[in-house]
């Protein structure tokens, strides 16, 4: 078991999903509420990582971060920072889609009630829309975390497999198998499997409202 790779992986997943929250909350708000006619184009771009081979995404990120590009001066290729950037792009739909769906499901009357009580759009966002979308926001966070854990192609393209910096669990497993170290690969794989299963269980439990949101549940039962 490569503990260094596990820590790198968790660090990457945490950094990625934290940054994604900052991007996904406003972006999801826009996706959920904008009436711009070309909005579907933005939605398609956000969803691209779902269908694009990770190597394609990784390739473009690598080019974008390379010395020829405006971002080249930051020296991001084959660094942890570059890896985070690529992961954020790669996991974007996993954060935006559940959050935008939850925002869109907030009933219009609550937003209007907030306005009619003199509360600004921004404050309404934090006091009505986000609290009523808790399950969606948590799902977005957890899914992007889990998705980053399982990343392989993008990490390989942009990160470059540097131990302790950019070597994640999935790459470690690949390396182990390449060197015919099957027993080590089996343990690491099992660890990744268990972590992923636990995280997805949390997501589904949240959406079934097994633990939280007692108030919501009471509300739903009463209606």
């Amino acid at each position, binding site marked *: 078991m490569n503990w260094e790779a596990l820590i790198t992986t968790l660090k990457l997943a945490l950094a990625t999903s934290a940054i994604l929250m900052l991007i996904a909350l406003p972006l999801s708000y826009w996706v959920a509420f904008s009436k711009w006619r070309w909005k579907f184009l933005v939605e398609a771009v956000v969803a691209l990582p779902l269908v694009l081979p990770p190597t394609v995404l990784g390739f473009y990120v690598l080019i974008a971060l390379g010395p020829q590009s405006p971002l080249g001066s930051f020296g991001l290729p084959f660094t942890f920072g570059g890896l985070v950037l690529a992961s954020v792009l790669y996991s974007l739909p996993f954060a935006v889609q559940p959050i935008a769906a939850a925002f869109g499901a907030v009933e219009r009357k609550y937003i209007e009630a907030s306005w009619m009580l003199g509360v600004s759009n921004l404050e309404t966002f934090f006091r009505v829309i986000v609290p009523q979308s808790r399950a969606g926001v948590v799902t977005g966070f957890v899914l992007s975390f889990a998705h980053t854990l399982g990343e392989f192609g993008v990490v390989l393209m942009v990160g470059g497999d540097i131990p302790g910096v950019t070597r994640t669990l999935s790459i470690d497993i690949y390396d182990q198998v390449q060197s015919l170290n099957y027993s080590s690969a089996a343990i690491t794989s099992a660890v990744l499997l268990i972590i992923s299963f636990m995280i997805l269980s949390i997501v589904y439990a949240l959406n079934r409202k097994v633990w939280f949101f007692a108030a*919501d549940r009471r509300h739903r039962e009463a209606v």
Partner: protein
Amino acid sequence: MLLIADIEKQFKGLRVEAGLRIPPGSSTTILFGPSGAGKTTVLRCIAGLEKLSAGRIIFDGQDWASVPPQKRPIGYLFQDYALFPHLRVRDNIGYAARRSPGTVKQVASMLKVDDLLDRWPSELSGGQQQRVALARVLARKPRLLLLDEPLSALDAATRDHVRSELVQLLRTLGIPAIVVTHDWVDALTLGDQMVVMSGGRVLQAGPPQEVFTRPQHPEVATAAGVETVVTGRIRWREGGVALLDVGSAQLATADPGGQEVDFYVCIRGEDVTLEKGRAEQSSARNHLRGTVSGIAVAGVLTKVIIDVGFELVALVTRQAATDLGLVKGAEIFAVFKASAVHLIPNARI
């Protein structure tokens, strides 16, 4: 005028056009009409939740064309109250006045919801939800109240009780209110003025009693569904029956209970039977002798106005009108049961 609203709003299928004038001080204006009449649209335009296609809204001399809903000093009560399900009653009421716990306390005690503050909205009855929603609206210290069907979410038993509380409240507050309703009892009970809408247009405006008794449009009459609205005073009550003076006539009705003596007396035209002579025995308590003072065709029915000491309207079939030989000046008995008389407390005396 506190509010001058000339509203034109083009929707997909409907064009809503209405003009409203609201004077300062405690007055309640009823926006009355069937669903789809455009009443709620008018309210939402005034609130700023819908943009006008044309027209203007002037509040206290200020043009509201570019004033966002947040900046309009309006208390808007939503039809199903829209209490935030993720906040307790305390935080719902304090939503607008977050930094002023004193205000929360004050409005909570005014609406008698002090003991509900720690509950969730889902734990409240319909009547309680309505009071909490009103408290939340008042905590904002509005200068104009817009109430969208404030009683329609309640069951019949609760509605009567909450309606009389609402009358009291609106009189105490001294804030003008616009109340949307399709219930004529609401209109008579709450309204000082009334605007009847149908199909996006204003059909008639005036004091509710006048609108109901003198509908200038067949649609108003249909919407109202009650042809006779007169004022009456209870002379005595005994054994569940009350005797009322109405004009120069006397009516027997079911005793409405309570202490009030002044009422609007409402009788639907369909409930009035016309007879040539006085029946020997009948279960109907009211037999009033009168003369026909007017006859008009009302769809498949004939509307007969009889002077029985007050103006009573009966709706009969054309055949019946012919058989009875009804002409202007003819003498006739008007018969209706005590239970056909609806009494609505008249607080404006």
